[in-house]
């Protein structure tokens, strides 16, 4: 069983069965990462190109490693030194990569919908590594994998996602996946950072972090960006931290086993205190490892399965 759609653009497009297949495959892949010799020949002769229009450490490195652990040829296109700075359109960049022989193009783009557009122009399979405020499916999959490893089941868990929901593709993709798997999803943040239109989704929304954390089994903190302060969406990082930062004190409101997640990179002392980030309940580093495993699983399911 692979991934049915040509491209992986959202969590929404995946069936529950596809998600389970990804989690299951990722658990097996995780075994490879902990080996001494981290190399299997599965994707030999396959070409993976990463096309990142936005900076990234984790996502890009994990896609690159995921490909390399499975012997694919991985090329990272650095946009800052590519023809894009000369004004080449996304369409033309995609077509160029296609004729060079790309089997999978992994794209990160600041504008929502760009990966979908790329997928319409190229026959290669496209993986969305984050587009605008829209979707970040591989992040949500690794988050869900991490939660599943600890709880076994996602159904019925109270998951509080706290922070800049308005600009967060991580929040949207997790919402889609977690709701599909039956979680009780809460969005929490100042009303200026909560998007309109959440009523129809089934997510519970509150500006009150204490209400959101109350008995939560998972607390997912989102990165707050200084630009949002400049746009007038909150007055200062200091006040934001005071109202929405996850401290040990606040974490006590949650279930005693509550997991703390963060997609990174974290702002220590802003949305999360250093103490909590490094504490026993934090799985922030586990998320990173699972990120490599999930991306290996996806490359395998989308490339290894081709032609079968």
């Amino acid at each position: 069983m692979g991934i049915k759609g040509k491209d992986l653009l959202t969590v929404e497009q995946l069936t529950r069965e596809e998600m389970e297949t990804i989690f299951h495959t990722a658990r097996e892949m995780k075994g490879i990462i902990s080996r001494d010799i981290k190399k299997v020949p599965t994707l030999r002769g396959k070409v993976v190109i990463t096309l990142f229009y936005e900076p990234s450490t984790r996502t890009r490195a994990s896609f690159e490693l995921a490909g390399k652990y499975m012997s694919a040829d991985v090329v990272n296109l650095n946009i800052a030194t590519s023809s894009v700075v000369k004004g080449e359109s996304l369409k033309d960049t995609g077509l160029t990569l296609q004729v060079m022989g790309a089997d999978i193009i992994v794209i990160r783009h600041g504008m929502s919908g760009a990966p979908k557009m790329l997928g319409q122009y190229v026959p290669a399979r496209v993986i969305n590594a984050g587009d605008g405020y829209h979707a970040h499916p591989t992040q949500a999959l690794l988050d869900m994998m991490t939660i599943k490893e600890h709880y076994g089941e996602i159904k019925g868990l109270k998951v509080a996602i706290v922070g800049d929901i308005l600009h967060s593709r991580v929040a949207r993709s997790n919402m889609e996946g977690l709701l599909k798997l039956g979680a009780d999803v809460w969005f929490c943040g100042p009303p200026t950072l909560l998007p309109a239109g959440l009523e129809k989704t089934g997510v519970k929304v509150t500006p009150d972090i204490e209400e959101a954390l109350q008995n939560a089994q998972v607390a997912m903190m989102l990165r707050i960006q200084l630009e949002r302060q400049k746009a007038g969406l909150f007055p200062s990082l200091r006040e934001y931290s005071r109202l929405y930062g996850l401290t040990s004190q606040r974490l006590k409101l949650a279930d005693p086993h509550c997991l703390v997640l963060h997609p990174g990179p974290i702002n220590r002392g802003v949305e999360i205190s250093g103490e909590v980030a490094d504490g026993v309940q934090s799985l922030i580093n586990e998320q990173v490892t699972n990120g490599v495993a999930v991306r290996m699983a996806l490359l395998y399911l989308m490339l290894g399965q081709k032609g079968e």
Partner: protein
Amino acid sequence: MEYILKGGVVIDPKTDMEKRLDIHVDNGKIKALGSNITEKNIETIDAAGRIIAPGFIDLHVHLREPGLEAHETIATGCRAAVAGGFTTIAAMPNTKPCADNEAVLELIKNRADRLKLARVLPIGAISKGQQGEEISEIGSLYQTGAVAISDDGKPVVNSEVMRRALEYTQIFGIPVISHSEELHLKGDGVMHEGYWSMLLGLAGIPAQAEEVMVARDLILAELTGGQLHLAHLSTRGSVELLEFYLDKQVKVTAEVTPHHLLLTDEEVKEYNTSTKVNPPLRSRDHVEAVRKALKKGTISCIATDHAPWSEEEKEQEYNKAPFGISGLETAVAVCWDTLVVKGGFSPKELIARFTTGPAGVLHLPCGTIAQGAEADFTVIDPNLTKQVDTALFYSKGKNSPVNGRSFRGWPVMTIVGGNIVMKDGVVAD
């Protein structure tokens, strides 16, 4: 050219007529109307099963020329207009340079006249350079043929300038067409703010970005007694404000576009940049509200806001692509299908929104079928079902969100000043 249009049902909202009538056209005018005109040696054109309406008027078109000819020219725009059943179009002034001076107006008129297709009425700019700072030479523009003034494409941010424009135009009796939008509330929005913008991760434009400015413009219209025309109304709140001020007898009219009557923000979900338009496609409740207002007549006109863009422009990321829909060649069919076939409008009600409505706004003599009047007709086949194919557009702008959809009720003949400029979708050379 002399001929008899035979056997069609003539619908003229101005005289409240709906009747099977023959029309005798001679020398560009209507020579006679009668239930059975037979003249020897005069050509007859069979119009049986067709509806003959006064020539349709579109008071909101972007022809792009001068300056933006990659996207449309006066020639391609006029072909698109008559292909879509319009005999008269009003051209918005946001060209390059913009129509804030007589030279640009003359250029548009001259090039349009030479084509002998649609009648093109230029709209002048409200402010010099459309900068919103000083009012343009509105008197000179009026004397050169401007039928209205507008800074369409952007709002007049400065309320004082808007006030002066609404006052000064009273010398000439022409309307100020307002593009009502509060730019800060719009922000970097690219679609309607709501459920779909949230899911798609696209920055939203709240309905209130329009409504705040509609309210201001109505308040200024009341203050000044000037004639205000609200372009592309798209929200329920705007309709409520409009109706409130109509009750107060303020001189205000409004238009709605075919796309705001048919489509909702859900259309954006494939990130098709042809759905990117300003004001944005709204949610269902707003669509219902503008339809209802159009039926009541508080919104008196349908206007296309025809905004053609080249494929390169629209083949970009959704955020980057420009706002606008190429609407001239689908407007009549979209509205006939949506409103007459499925929406409870009578043919006469719809025809009025394309004729007497816009003629009233611009104080035009056209828009009626009567002896001695100009022979401008839009002939509609109410039973023709056809699929939209943008590859066949005369317009350079293929940016249509209804490409591939089928509609019932198409214009099959366009007659301007007695000349048949379009027949069965084919524009005369």
